[in-house]
């Protein structure tokens, strides 16, 4: 009887629909306007629109999953999802572990944000950055004291409550926060250019998916849809192809 049950359970697992090409897109969901969870509880933002468009053009059936930033690469390589689309800049270190598609955002500057009116030397002060980002790497090598946080939101909160003198992050992420801070926050130093552009991260063994996505991204660059999307989400400061 036990064996019968086991056999039934196994065959139930074995059958199932034919495997459609379902591609699971992994994102952080905490980095507006790149990607965030909207009030409906769904993934939203520039990368949601971009990802859906890429999947449409490449005829892929895509679903969205969120994953903490810190473990976003390990979960990709252990196949819990098939692509990272989370504002991830292309760097040499990451490229050793995973593969990147063609870039969909050109290299864009990072900015320092601190309390308005304060005088902070960003080369010596205490600077907040998100863990495992190019900005964290930059702060660590700049001579300033680095404090790392798990989520982007916490890096800004650290500046507001005085734990850090300034935060270093993508300017596109910080700009709306500064604009809506009611004069409390301001860009306090020159922008810095670190890292390459932003691309989707894929497993190195996934050459076929990479080719499909690259075709879609190149087509979107060529017909201007990507530029329109960038302007829609990043407003005036939008980087353009």
């Amino acid at each position, binding site marked *: 009887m036990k064996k019968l049950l086991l056999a039934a359970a196994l065959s139930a697992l074995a059958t199932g629909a034919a495997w459609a090409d379902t591609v699971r897109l992994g994102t952080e969901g905490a980095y507006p306007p790149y990607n965030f969870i909207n*009030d*409906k509880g769904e993934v939203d933002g520039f990368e949601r629109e971009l990802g859906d468009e890429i999947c449409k053009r490449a005829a892929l059936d895509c679903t969205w999953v969120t994953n903490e930033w810190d473990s976003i690469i390990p979960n990709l*390589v252990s196949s819990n999802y098939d692509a990272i689309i989370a504002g991830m800049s292309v760097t040499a270190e990451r490229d050793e572990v995973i593969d990147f598609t063609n870039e969909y955002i050109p290299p864009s500057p990072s900015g320092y944000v601190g309390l308005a009116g304060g005088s902070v030397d960003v080369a010596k002060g205490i600077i907040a950055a998100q863990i495992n980002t190019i900005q964290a790497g930059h702060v660590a090598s700049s001579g300033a004291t680095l404090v790392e946080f798990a989520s982007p939101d916490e890096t800004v909160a650290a500046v507001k409550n005085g734990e850090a003198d300034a935060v270093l992050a993508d300017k596109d992420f910080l700009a709306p926060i500064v604009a809506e801070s009611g004069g409390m926050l301001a860009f306090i130093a020159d922008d810095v250019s670190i890292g390459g552009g932003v691309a989707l991260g894929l497993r190195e063994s996934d050459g076929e998916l990479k080719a499909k996505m690259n075709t879609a991204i190149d087509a979107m660059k060529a017909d201007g849809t990507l530029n329109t999307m960038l302007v829609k989400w990043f407003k005036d400061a939008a980087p353009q192809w």
Partner: protein
Amino acid sequence: MFEICAEPRSLEGLTWLSCYLTTPKHAAMYYSILTVLGLLLAVVPPILFLGFAGALARRSKIAPVRWLGVGYTSIVRGVPDIVFFLFFPIALDQAVEYIRHKIKCADVLEPVYQGNDFVVCQAAKMPLGIADQFYHEAWGFSLAVITFAIVFGAFTANTLHGALNAVPKGQLETARAFGMSERQTFWRVHMPQMWVYALPGLSNLWMILIKATPLLFLLGVKDIVYWAKELGGMKTQVYTYAHPDWRIWYFGALLVFYLFLTWVSQRAFDRIFARASRGLSVAS
């Protein structure tokens, strides 16, 4: 949810708040309360099972079984929880997928481990890539239950082992003098009296378990602490309901939630303790 909430930006005061607190995203947070309570209820039977198995194994007369019991409790108790929670579910997940890959895709020749990549065939994915998100979450939840059970089972085994030893020898000798068999002595005298010694330790473990539930997030299950952090963070105008950093309110609510849970638990344990110590003079 309500019709008046169609245009959130035009709302003010209490109407805004009531619309805000009933967004689907907040519903996800309320739902996560059930996830936490569900986990707490789901892990108790396997924890007690592993606890008893471990405690009895440590008392076994057969040496290898005893070593197994001691090994299990010592190793699991010695490894930091967070390391265990990071390592074990991924290892278990990969083990399951690896076995399924070997069974279902025997004809696939490419190795499963390709450099950094762990790649199994589509049919071996657990759950399948095409499965609804619900199944992915249910699978993550199951991994969480197993991991919690193994970790807390080891602590429980140690508590029960100590409690079994704490029952006065005279009680057991008396039972034997009455002519009870080994088995009768254990079930009628040893076990019922053991609870009085085990309960304080078990109630500690239960409280720690309640507070350990946020570790769920490490396993990809979105629990109430994750949602409080996510909802409480500052929201710019890109969100429908923009607001400043409100984490203090959300974490305040969390505080009340966890205090309530521990308060109810303590009352329940007081009652269980009163019941377990009926007729015993040893417990004061």
